[in-house]
């Protein structure tokens, strides 16, 4: 379990969250405007509107099936909204009028380049070594020189503590190691936004710490915007500038971590936290 003592002073985190909403700060990194999404009769996002400022670390919490993951999947273009506008770094990712079919545009592809994602199930390429997994996109997409890509991949593997395993294929690695490779793979594309979709839920309990350690390091040492869906409440409290409680396709409550976790305003948040923290 992550130590709360490691976390920065709550006061600084509050000020970071406050300044994020100040109007004179630079433009938001992510915007959702009236975004809706349904699966049949199940409305997973209901005219959702929110913004994330550059460099902000935001955790999304809430019960399973509440649409948290759908937010990330829409940002990664793995799902399309039924309607609404989504922008990343000033570029339009989605602009869908109700009743029309969303299309892949050049601008969407450009916007997508700024986003990286870490999946619950890692999704490493099983036939490639750890090193090759990380090198693939920089070489093929960024047209990076192979040697430069190798050097960068080696550096990233070192950062996540896996230099010794660079020649290993994913089936030979533990879940925690695979997830760390997956984080390095996403970082290799130098995204401005990193999405973490329950990055530790598929891991054995003893392997969660090593993955959280890497994410914590990223949160503290980079100016990347981070959006994380997680069930690790203490971790969310520790690394986030802002926490969003989500349920039934809507934002129930948002605020600084200490507000949400210590003094939630909404009854629904209180119930949820009581249920997850008691187990």
């Amino acid at each position, binding site marked *: 379990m992550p130590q709360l003592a490691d976390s920065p002073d709550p006061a600084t985190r509050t000020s970071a969250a406050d300044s994020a909403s100040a109007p004179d700060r630079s433009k938001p990194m992510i915007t959702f405007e009236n975004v809706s999404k349904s699966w049949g009769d199940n409305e997973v996002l209901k005219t959702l509107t929110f913004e994330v400022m550059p460099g902000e670390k935001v955790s999304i919490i809430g019960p399973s099936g509440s649409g948290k993951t759908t937010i990330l999947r829409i940002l*990664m273009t793995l799902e399309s909204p039924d309607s609404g506008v989504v922008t990343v770094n000033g570029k339009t990712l989605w602009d869908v009028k109700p009743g029309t079919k969303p299309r892949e545009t050049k601008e969407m592809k450009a916007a*997508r380049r700024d986003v990286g994602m870490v*999946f619950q199930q890692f*999704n*490493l*390429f099983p036939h490639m070594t750890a090193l090759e997994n990380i090198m*693939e996109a920089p070489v093929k*997409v960024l047209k990076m020189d192979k040697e430069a890509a190798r050097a960068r991949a080696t550096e990233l593997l070192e950062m996540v503590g896996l230099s010794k395993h660079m020649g290993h294929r994913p089936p030979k690695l533990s879940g925690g190691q695979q997830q760390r490779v997956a984080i390095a793979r996403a970082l290799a*594309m130098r995204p401005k936004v990193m999405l973490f979709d329950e990055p530790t839920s598929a891991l054995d309990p003893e392997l969660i710490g090593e993955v959280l350690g890497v994410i914590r390091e990223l949160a503290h040492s980079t100016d990347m915007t981070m959006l994380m869906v997680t069930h690790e409440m203490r971790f969310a409290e520790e690394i986030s500038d802002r926490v969003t409680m989500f349920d039934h396709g809507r934002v129930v409550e948002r605020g600084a971590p200490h507000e949400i976790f210590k003094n939630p305003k909404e009854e629904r948040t209180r119930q949820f936290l009581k249920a997850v923290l008691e187990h």
Partner: protein
Amino acid sequence: MIWDQAFALSIIPKLLQGLRVTVEITLLGFAIAAVLGLAVAIVRRIRVPVVARLFDFYVLFIRGTPLLVQAYTAFFVLPDLGIRFSALTTGIVIMGVNYSAYCAEVYRAGIEDVPPGQWEAATALSLPGTTTWGRVVLPQAVRSVVPVLGNYLVQMFKDSAVLSAITVFELLNAAQSIGSSNFRYLEPLTLAGLLFFLVSFPASYLFRTLERRLAPAR
């Protein structure tokens, strides 16, 4: 009828010639089937408009008609329409086209077996379609179907005997012609069967071993 050892030995060179043609047909036909089948499978998966529909029908039609009828039509009917090739060329192409429909189905299963997470990771990394197919999906899909394709190769080797019906001088045809000109069928047909077995048995064994090797990859 009693086995004539001297006669049997004397016809072996001619039978081996037939075997050579059979192997040739099998390898070239399989090359066509493997490549064409893959193209069909990819087009159907991407749902390229119109072409995908055509290929759906192609697979349905070829799997729904006998190889022998296809070979007859290609060799005896197409020349009436001005399309004329040697028996051997016709035979190779027909075997290739016929098996491409089966290979397409095998590839399709292999492609469907690649977990959705692999496609999603490719999207998340902005990999272009060609890279996603060429470096992520196909290496995994093909790897998982190699043993099945191998079995088709062996089956194709045996099925090529059908081409004797359109005068291709392959192994069975060689045996039949020896039989009819010497009025002795025991030795040539027995030896032909034996030769088929001597090639297909080790090949089957090889692919079964390969299957065990490739299985625990994921």
